[in-house]
């Protein structure tokens, strides 16, 4: 069974269009982030914790749903002695001044709970008087970010070093132009994904960071697989120019690209629709990232190798002996015609 029968698409022809499209999206993303800022989750910006004590053990997901935006950006946890039915709700409190925000935020949380039928909770100005009083706010405090400036810097540093390591490895295993292509493609995927996060106003939370790391890994994997086939074709199709070699490699791998990308996408889409509100940001980032990652390994990573190498003839070491018997009896195929269906 094949998805494509002998595909022979001229991907290389579209490289400049693809690069232009990517620039448009990235610049639009930069513009949006520049003007509106990248919204950050409570892990990064800090916020207010409101402790609410309910009469009955509350359904945490109903509590979360009652908060503005479906509570996607809030952290809701059960808290303390189970007998007191206490819930800790951590939300943003950025728009208001520090002094006023504490009570304002607490009031708006109480209001949101009451309008959604989880109350009646007494106004936050009245704190629970005794351990046995219920339906009241038992505490509120401002907290700083759990991911402080130092941890953010270390995270960025780690990513930069990781990219550097990959650059060196690919330059060593393939050639320098391939390494540049892979790293540029990876940065491209991160930027495009960030742009989409900004377009759809998703906050940068720890979950989203995890997803960003995942798509970096995914994109890297995808790029190297295609590079590997390009390298192999450079040996078997020595008379062809690089554009033809790249095209045939992408076409030969098209079934695999579609299946792997499609299946991974499928499982992430399942997460998006059935994974609940909290995982939406994670799943959304993954969906964008997988599509971008697949697109970039075809259109960006390979294109950069082509552009970098220019029209210079490709020098290749004499065909390395791969598996015994390999290459023998196999004609130097023209692009895409290798696969008999």
């Amino acid at each position, binding site marked *: *069974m094949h998805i494509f029968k002998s595909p022979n698409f001229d991907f290389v022809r579209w490289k400049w269009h693809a690069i232009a499209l990517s620039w448009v999206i990235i610049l639009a993303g930069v513009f949006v982030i520049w003007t509106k800022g990248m919204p950050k989750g409570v892990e990064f910006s*800090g916020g207010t914790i409101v402790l609410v004590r309910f009469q009955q053990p509350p*359904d*945490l*997901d109903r509590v979360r749903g009652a908060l503005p935006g479906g509570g996607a950006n809030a952290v*809701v*946890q*059960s*808290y*303390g*002695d189970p007998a007191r039915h206490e819930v800790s709700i951590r939300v943003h409190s950025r728009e208001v001044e520090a002094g006023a925000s504490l009570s304002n935020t607490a009031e708006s949380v109480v209001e949101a709970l009451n309008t959604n039928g989880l109350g009646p909770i007494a106004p936050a100005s009245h704190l629970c008087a005794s351990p046995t009083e219920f339906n009241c706010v038992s505490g509120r405090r*401002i*907290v*700083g*970010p*759990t991911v402080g400036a*130092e*941890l953010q810097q*270390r995270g960025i*540093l*780690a*990513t930069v*070093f*990781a990219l550097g*390591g*990959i650059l060196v490895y*690919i330059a060593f295993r393939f050639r320098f132009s391939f390494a540049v292509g892979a790293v540029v493609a990876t940065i491209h995927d991160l930027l495009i994904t960030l742009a989409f996060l900004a377009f759809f106003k998703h906050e940068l939370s*720890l*979950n989203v960071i*995890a997803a960003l*790391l*995942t798509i*970096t*890994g*995914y994109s*890297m*994997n995808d790029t*190297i*697989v295609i590079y*590997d*086939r390009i390298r192999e074709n450079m040996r078997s199709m020595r008379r062809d120019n690089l554009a033809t070699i790249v095209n045939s490699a992408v076409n030969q791998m098209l079934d*695999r690209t579609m*299946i*792997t990308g499609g*299946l991974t996408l*499928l*499982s992430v889409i399942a997460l998006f*629709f*059935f*994974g*609940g509100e*909290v*995982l939406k940001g994670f799943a959304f980032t*993954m969906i964008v990232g997988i599509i971008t990652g697949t697109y970039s390994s075809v259109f960006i990573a390979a294109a950069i190798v082509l552009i970098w190498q220019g029209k210079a003839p490709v020098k290749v070491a004499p065909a390395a002996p*791969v*598996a015994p*018997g*390999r290459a023998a009896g196999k004609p130097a195929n023209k692009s895409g015609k*290798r696969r*008999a269906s």
Partner: protein
Amino acid sequence: MYKNLRWKLLSIAAVFVVFFAVGVYPMLGAHFHLPVPEALQSRALKLGLDLKGGVELRMRVNTDDALKTTTTSTAEALRASLATSNITPMINVTSPMTFRVEGVPQDRDSQFRTASDEVTATDYDRNPLPAGTYEFKMKPNIERDQREQAVDQTMQTIDRRVNELGVVEPSIARQSNNEELLIQLPGVSDVAHAKEIIGKTAQLEFKLVEAGPASKEDLLKQYNGNLPGDLEILPGSGGDATGAFYVVKKIAPVTGSDLRVAKPGLDENNQPAVHFELKPAGAPKFGKLSGENIGRYLAIALDNKIISAPRLDGRITDQGRISGGFTAESANDLALTLRSGALPASLTSLEENVVGPSLGADSIRAGVLASLVGLMLILGFMLVYYKLSGINAAVALIFNLVILLGLMAYLGATMTLPGIAGFVLTMGVGVDSNVLIFERIKEEIAAQRGVRAAINAGFSRVLMTLLDTHVASLIAAAFLFQFGTGPIRGFATTLSIGLFVNLFTSIFVSKTLYDFELSRRQVPALSI
């Protein structure tokens, strides 16, 4: 040709059973109330704060401690500077931010002012009081910076300590008045022990002994009841009714911040002890201290209690040992706290609470359901698209998942959402490996090869590709682990383990299954 096949199959089955027992069975057991043996229970995969909840500690950083340290050392520096010009007034630290100098001779006043300008002018305001007395008060902006720094440093130190404790992803946040910390520890069972390790100041100091050990009264008598300003009396670690006290120099030339390594070990009497090595900057200081004072005693003080006071027998430069009534566990704890550095200030525990998972039970249930749906879709597609060969892929993927869970449980890793992200990526790479191999086999068959040759060529050719993708990802994961923190490390751990497991399952397991099928009958055409 297939003489090893039986052994391969048996070892694969054994691996599966072992990791299933370690990683999956305890989870199923907890869910469906099955009996789980104690040994497996204790090894069960730990879940992080976001999936399971944990303990929340609220602690206050007593930043006065840090100010007092600064003030004391400034006062001592002033004393030393004055001593060189033969002025010896009384210097007393009166509060964390102030110290007082009494008895500056009238005729040496200008000399005193010059000396004090040099030592204190940047950080302290000087107020003249009557009768040759001056009060030095820390400047408000310096005070603010110092307090800020103390809290920051405390957060970092706690983070390091908790990481060493094996609680993989603590969450530490400042709150309200900026001197309170909210520390959440996932999956902690021994709260008291965790609190002890977090809260231990671990201020290690090496101070020269002037007199002792003796009772406090006897020591004071030696100084006619009036201790010189640069000396202090510290209790021994047993220091209560037994009453061993020492007179030591106030200033410690070498402190815990000069340590590079601290690890538990044994002393010459085979008693638990802590071995340490000094940083390049600390070694000359220690060499000078020990070289100039051969024959004297050196007090090793931890949080102002003297653990031991060995005699200096020779010049010591870069390493040494702390012994004195440790148990193996307390030596271990001390080494851990020394490695992670001293807290600049002590902590007061304010509150301790149990918190539920931040993702919420319903979200977790939904997430697990979604993952299972995703996995089913993948397996279903593989079976439909690759027909019988799809069974190989399905087996390889399920093995991948089971071994990964088992290994993580065995290594004591904590499962959090970033870890799950690592899982998703591993599964994606796992699917990709199988697809790559199968597509390659199809190509080989299309090129008119026999079934056996096509399978062999498929696996051997794809091996290089897989090595490239896996090694590149491993390099990235290694950097993320080394330089990242908390969640990034969690991701890197899962990914690295997953990559190794995937090489095993997609190449070894899948190939063995093909070998098994081919060994049973002559296959004219491959179902792929």
